[in-house]
Every structure is written in C-alpha cells, then in structure tokens.
C-alpha cells in the first residue's frame, strides 16, 4: 500500500513542481477568469441589480471555462516528450497516476480560482449573503471538473485541435455541476437551504473520484499506442 502511495506522491509532487515552475500557465488561467468576468459589466450594463442577478451564473460558467482551458496541459506535454508512455510502462497502477495528475491539476487550477472568486464577486456586485455558499459549491464542484476533464483530455490525446475537441466532449458533462452550483447560491439568496445541492455536488465528486481515473487511464493507454 505504501508502495502505491509512493508512486502517487511522486506524480503529484512532480506535476505541482512543473506547474509552479511554469507559473505563466497558471497566470493565464486566472487572467482569463478575471478579464472574462470584467467583460460582463460592459456587456450587460453596470446596473448593480442586473449584475447581482447574473453574478452566480457568470462566476460558475467562467470557472467551468477556465478549468476547461487548462485541461490540455494535463497529458499533452507528457505525451509529446514520451513521459506518458513511460508512465504506462512503470509497475505503478495507471489509475493512481491519473488520479495524482488530476489532483495536481485541481490544486493548480481549481483552488486558485476559488481563491480569487471573492475578488471577481466584488467586480460583479455578487450578493454578500451568498459568498459562503458560492465558495463551498466551488470547493465541491471544481475537483469534479478536473476529474471529468481528465477523461476528456485523455480521450483527445494526439488529436488535431484537441483543445476544441475537449470542449465539445467535456462541457456537456459539466452541466449538472453548473446547475447544482448555481441553484445552491440562488436558493440561499431566496431564503432556502443549500444543503441538498451540496449533497448532489458531493455525490458527483464521490462518483468521479473512482470512475473518472478508470476511464481516463483506459483512454491514456489507447492514446500512447500511436
């Protein structure tokens, strides 16, 4: 068991190190999130009530898109330099390797997005009463985005225009997370409890933790047979 974990930690730490040393990638994702959010006051007008009404949905949609934009770095570089086929050839279970990569992706994408969400909230006049719900929802939802995204990224390995293909594959699968994330905030703002929505988000995450790496590992195996 400890042997399994040694491989898991090795991949996790390596991917974190790579992401932090290539921090431009991380900055691009956060920059996209911020700039795209700042377009909405120009697009729909700066009326505070309008912005407050759409803010939860805008923040969630942009979080989805930001995560999706960074998915190609999950496997693409490792495929290009031969690391991925060597990972397939090690005695470590590929499922754990994929899980470690998805966790590293969340730590360097989802987590920073959650961290700057309050700033984006101010920009969009997000109702203060909904902040807690928004952040808990993102904390439960974004790990699922990374896990489901890993399946999409693995399936499009080696494809031309993989980025667009990932969007087509992954965005429809993100819809349930978007719905429960946004309705959680809306229900709190209209005086109801968000607990049921959190439970749905948690259920999606609990299902994605074992299933997504299994699917992604199978796709990676296929992808390296080039």
């Amino acid at each position, binding site marked *: 068991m400890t042997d399994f974990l040694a491989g898991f930690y090795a991949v996790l730490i390596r991917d974190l190190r790579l992401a932090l040393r290539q921090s431009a990638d991380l900055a691009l994702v956060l920059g996209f999130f911020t700039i795209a959010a700042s377009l909405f006051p120009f697009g729909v007008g700066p009326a505070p009530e309008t912005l407050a009404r759409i803010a939860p949905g805008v923040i969630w949609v942009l979080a989805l898109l930001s995560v999706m934009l960074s998915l190609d770095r999950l496997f693409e570089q490792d495929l290009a330099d031969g690391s991925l*086929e060597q990972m397939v*050839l090690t005695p470590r279970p590929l499922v754990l390797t994929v899980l470690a990569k998805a966790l590293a992706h969340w730590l360097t994408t989802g987590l920073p997005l959650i961290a700057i969400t309050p700033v984006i909230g101010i920009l969009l006049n997000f109702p203060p009463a909904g902040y807690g719900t928004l952040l808990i929802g993102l904390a439960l939802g974004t790990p699922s985005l990374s896990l489901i995204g890993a399946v999409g990224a693995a399936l499009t390995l080696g494809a031309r225009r993989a980025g667009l293909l990932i969007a087509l594959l992954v965005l429809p699968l993100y819809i349930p997370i978007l719905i429960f994330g946004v309705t959680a905030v809306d229900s709190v703002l209209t005086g109801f409890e968000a607990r049921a929505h959190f439970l749905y988000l948690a259920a999606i995450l609990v299902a994605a933790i074992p299933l997504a790496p299994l699917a992604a590992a199978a796709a990676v195996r296929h992808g390296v*047979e080039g």
Partner: protein
Amino acid sequence: MARLTATSLTCLRGPRLVFEGLDFSLDAGDALLLTGPNGSGKSSLLRLLAGLLSPLDGQITANGRPISDDMEGHRAATAYLGHLDPIKSTLSVQENARFWATLLGTPDRVDTALATLNLTELAALSGRVLSSGQRRRLSLTRLLLSPADLWLLDEPTVGLDTNAVAAVEQMVMDHRAQGGVVILSTHIEFQLPGAKTLDLGDFTPAAFRSEAPV
C-alpha cells in the same frame, strides 16, 4: 523455457503491412540486434514487444505465457527506450532521475545510475540546458533504475560520443551477465558479443517492398 519468443508476428501500421511472419526466440542473457532499412519496422517491433502496440497476428510470449494474458505485468517487467527523451526542462537532472526512480520503485539507485552515465556533475542543472547527448544519457539512466530484465532499446546511441557509447555497451554486457535480455536497433557499430541478428527487411511483405523508403 525461452525468456521471450515471437511467433509469426505480423504488424500493421495504418494501411501498410510493416512485416509479417516474424519469429525469434531468446533465452536469459541473449541479445538480439535489429537491422533493416528505414521503415522496415524496427521501432514497431520494439513497441509491440513493450506492449505499446498490438500485433495484427502472431503471438509474443514471455516466460512461456502470452504477454496479452498479463499486459500490466509484462509492461512492468520491461524497460523501453524510445526515440523520445522524457525529460522535463524545468526539473533538474537529479529531479528527473529521482522521479522515474520513485515510479520504478528504486529511489536508492539514483546516484549510482547518474554516476555510471557520467552525469553526477550535471545533477543540479535544469533539463533545459542539456545537450542532445546529455539528454540521451539521462534517458539511459532509466535502464539502470528499472528492475526490468527485458530491455528494448530503440537506437540507444543517437547523439552519444564514443565514451558514452562504450558505457552503454558495458551496461548492456552487465545486464546480460545478470541474465537480462536485450533487444536493440542501431545504425552504428555497437559491440554486442554473441548477439543474434534479425534483418527486418527480410520480413517486409513483397507487395510493400517497393514502397519502403530507400
């Protein structure tokens, strides 16, 4: 019981039949040198043997059992060195080697492996500044880190100077002395005493022979 055998192996890449009816058998300590013109399927054969490709027809057995029965186990017992150098430019030489050593379960071998390939002095350098020969040497350390007894080497000496080639020859010799099996393709003079040779050009289907690049 032969360590590794291939029986009437046939390989299809895209629309092209690369080779057909290929047979060989290797025992512990054996080496097989793959020769043949470009496009005759040396790399494809090595990828088949690594389990990274599936044959169209024929069978590969390791220790008497078809490798398709236990692909995971076979991959774990195989060290494959392809054309690519899996080196991260933002990690140091030491960090690159340590990562693979941990995945291969041999973190204690890093220093010896780096020393054998004369990389100790470069250990702190980042992967970005390595020359192509140095990158190749770093890739070769993976063989020393791997506990596998089957080595599949696809042109292992590309970009290496004569000293490094001699070091690789020594590595291969030591590995065979310990009962390991080595299959390699190369275009240069490579000392491989007592090795069998397999000219893949002999197995190119007649219909495709004219298509092979000269």
